[in-house]
């Protein structure tokens, strides 16, 4: 085997090995910059307009796509953010699913908080796409702003919901 071929193979092999590493890092990159970015695109096409539909009944689909900065769109929360407590920084995308909060392991947000009950509260969208918080008979109560919840209550955008030491908000 000629010297040249072997040198080309040697360098080629190193290049291929590094190419694999770079491709693998490209796959990881989506973690660093948030896998949510790609999903938001798909949600905008399918999930979001459904939530919006109640308010934009008359708008044809094309117009909805264009109305990215429209007023109604801006007022609908898209994510739930934990702003205080041990889980600070956790976000959950609001996709029309019910979000349960509590210490139980199968909750959507598992609270590691001595003041929380195992099934403490739930947050769900009603028919019109408004998000509702409901206390599930917790021991220490769920607070919206400063008042303790007694019934299912719609959540204003950015209003703090307090459970023990954890505070969550709905944001755009």
């Amino acid at each position, binding site marked *: 085997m000629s010297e040249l071929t072997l040198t080309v193979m040697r360098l080629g092999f190193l290049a291929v*090995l590094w190419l*694999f590493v770079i*491709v693998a890092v490209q796959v990881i990159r989506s973690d660093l910059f948030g896998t949510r970015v790609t999903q938001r695109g798909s949600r905008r096409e399918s*999930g979001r307009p459904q*939530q919006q539909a*109640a308010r934009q009944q008359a708008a044809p689909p094309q117009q909805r796509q264009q109305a990215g900065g429209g007023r109604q769109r801006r007022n609908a929360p898209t994510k739930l953010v934990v702003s205080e407590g041990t889980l600070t920084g956790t976000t959950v995308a609001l996709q029309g699913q019910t979000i349960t909060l509590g210490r139980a*392991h199968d909750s959507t947000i598992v609270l590691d908080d001595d003041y929380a009950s195992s099934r403490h509260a739930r947050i769900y969208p009603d*028919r019109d796409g408004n998000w509702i918080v409901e206390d599930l008979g917790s021991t220490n109560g769920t607070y919206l702003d400063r008042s303790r919840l007694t019934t299912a209550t719609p959540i204003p955008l950015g209003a703090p919901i307090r459970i023990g030491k954890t505070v969550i908000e709905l944001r755009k």
Partner: protein
Amino acid sequence: MSSTTNTPTHHTSTIGAIGAPSRRNTELALLVFAVVIPVFAYANVGLAINGSVPSGLLGYGLGLGLLAGVGHLVVRKFAPYADPLLLPLATLLNGLGLVVIWRLDQSPRLQQRAKYLFGAFSPDAPKQLLYSALGIAFFAVIIVFLKDHRLLQRYTYISMVVALILLVAPVFFPAVNGAKIWISIGSFTIQPGEFAKIIIAIFFSGYLMVKRDALALASRRFIGLYLPRGRDLGPIITVWAMSLLILIFETDLGTSLLFFGMFVVVLYVATERTSWIVFGLLMSSAGAVGVASFEPHVQQRVQAWLHPFSDKVMAQSDQVAQSLMSFGSGGVLGTGLGQGNSDLIGFAANSDFVFATFGEELGLAGVMAVLLLYGLIVERGVRTALAARDPFGKLLAVGLSSAFAIQVFVVGGGVMGLIPLSGMTMPFVAYGGSSVIANWALIGILMRISDTARRPAPAPIANPDAEMTQVVRP
């Protein structure tokens, strides 16, 4: 997904959860890549040594491809949301290991040495391929039968007992080459430390999940450090004493470092107290220096590390010196696969010292790439821990990936002369059944945790009362 043209009356019930993409196709593409690279390397070795493409190329490529394919299909069926990188990374390392072991099988020096010592030479690569198949089978069994990693939490204390038995057992078997890390049953031998690594990670995470509040909160502050109470030092002292006993009775520096290091990492992650790391480092260095002062086997290793080229060390074994020469002669770009002289290492050239062959034939560039592959596996493990929602899963993922990282560091550092050499194997790459099988099991558990962590929340169940309650709303 449902269409966008739902009428308003039905829209709440038809919205499905849009989860993270499962990324199985990314995994498949990377797997193909991860099989092609070792096949290329295999052809390269054959061309360099014999001047022709080796005859086993097709069989070897198909074998590795079949293993990867089986692994992929099992993951696609039973853990569809698992991390897409772990399987390709492990496959690539395993494939590269097979190539290098096959390359060392072709070495006339090692063949003669085997004939001289044992009367016959038997190639190791086919055996390693068999071990890899067993490893993938074990991996598949874990993915299929371990539906939820939290089941392992039930066996916290049982796993402690099992791990202790596995760790203590080699004491009762004769030492092989100075270290008692083997159990021999009939004709084959097992290295129980490799399996104990996984089992003890289950114990550490189960135990610390329960005790972490006591360990984290009950402490006094002293010059910026949280000093734990005396009685809370119990567990760390127990594990420390155990790892020292392993070091003394089994004269195995690697296993000892691995267990203590993993415990300190998991303890730190569970309690978020830097003081544990400080204590851990102090205790391990005190322990290591203490044992080295009277244990001849450890002293010998330290001498070989400090003065690898001295006459005294060379008279006993020139392995470390040969390994350093291999790395040196590889330079930046290496000599090319099949064209190095790393077979001069002789004994354990394809197991403990396999990394020296990478160093010589692929050079610094290749060694860095391989270390990055290990780093990516560890990164995926830690990432899984971040994504996991249950504390047990978090600690287990951290424990397993830190064990993996420590093992790579201990072996790589030993071979390169950074720390004293210890009898451990480079995961996936080195020849050895226990190591390959145990590390595939480790990857299996990590993938199970990541599948649970990345799985999107289930679609909301249609609540029959919803219609009723919503009518009452103003």
